[in-house]
C-alpha cells in the first residue's frame, strides 16, 4: 500500500477478494471507531469515543469491467445488505480507476443520500476524488490523500 491517510478507525480484520453480493472487492477491512490501547487511553476512549463498527470496501475498476450507474447502485445495495447482516454502522466504499469517471457516475455518487455509507470515486491517475454528500462521504476527502500513479 502506498500513500498517506489519517487515523479513522481501528481496522482489525482484512479480507482480500471478498465477495459481497455479486461484487468481489479487492480489499475489505472491518474495525471499530473506538481505539484500543493501554489503560489510560482505553478509559479515555470508553468515555469519549463512540464505538461504531465500521468497514471500508475497495474495488478497482479495470478496463475489462464496465461500471455504470446501475452497476454502482447494485454494489451499494449489496454493501447496505452486508452492513445489515454484519451489524456495521458506517461503511466507506472506494471505487478506484486509472482515468476519469463518466459525469453520470459522478452525479450519481454526489446525489447518493444514504447517511451510513460514504462513497468515493477515485481517479488514481490525476488524484481526483468525487464523494457522496453524506457526512462520512464528505470526510473521505479529508481522510484519504490519493497518490497519483506515475
Amino acid at each position, binding site marked *: 500500500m502506498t500513500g498517506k491517510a489519517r487515523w479513522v478507525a481501528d481496522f*482489525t*480484520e*482484512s*479480507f*482480500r*477478494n*471478498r465477495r459481497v453480493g455479486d461484487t468481489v472487492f479487492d480489499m475489505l477491512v472491518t474495525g471499530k471507531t473506538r481505539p*484500543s490501547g493501554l489503560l489510560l487511553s482505553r478509559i479515555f476512549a470508553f468515555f469519549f469515543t463512540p464505538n461504531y463498527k465500521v468497514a471500508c470496501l475497495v474495488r478497482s475498476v479495470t478496463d475489462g469491467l464496465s461500471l455504470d450507474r446501475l452497476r454502482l447502485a447494485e454494489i451499494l445495495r449489496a454493501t447496505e445488505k452486508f452492513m445489515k447482516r454484519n451489524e456495521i454502522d458506517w461503511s466507506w466504499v472506494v471505487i478506484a480507476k486509472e482515468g476519469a469517471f463518466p459525469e453520470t457516475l459522478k452525479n450519481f455518487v454526489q446525489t447518493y443520500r444514504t447517511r451510513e455509507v460514504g462513497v468515493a470515486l477515485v481517479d488514481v491517475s490525476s488524484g481526483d476524488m468525487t464523494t457522496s454528500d453524506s457526512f462520512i462521504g464528505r470526510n473521505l476527502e479529508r481522510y484519504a490523500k490519493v497518490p497519483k500513479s506515475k
Partner: protein
Amino acid sequence: MDTIERISPTNLFICFGSTLMVLTVVSALSGFLALGEFFVSMFVLIINMIISIAAAWPIYRYWFHTKMSMDDEQFNLEVGKREKASGRWNEFDEVSLVHLGRGRMGIRLYYRNKDDFVEIPASDLKLNASDLRFKAIDLTKKGQPPNETQG
C-alpha cells in the same frame, strides 16, 4: 504433517510475573494476619521467585503454548491445553488477516457451512501472518468449486 511449535518469551514472562504477583500478595496478607502489618521479607520474596520460576512453565503450557500441525489437506491447532481445533482446509471458504491485540497477528478461517470461524494466532507460532493468510487462501481454494472467490 508439519508441526510448528514455538515458545513465546512474552507469554512465559506474563506467567512468571502473574504468579510472582499473586504469591507476593498472599505473602503480604499472611504477614498482615500473623504480624499485623503488610510485610514481605527478602527471604520470602526469593522463595516466591523460585516458586514462580518453577510454576511459570506448567502455567504457560496450560494457557498459552501454541502448537500447530498442518499439511495440504488439514490442520490441528492447540492453544495450551484449553483450546483445540482441527479441520480440513476445504471446510472453509473465507480467510482474513486479523489483529489479535498486543501487536499479535493471526488469520481467521470462516466455515463454509456454518456461521463460525477458527483463529490461528500466527504471531504466537512466529509465522508471518500475511504469508500464512495467502497460503491458507490457496489451500482453501483447492476444495472450492470453480469461480467461487474468497479472501
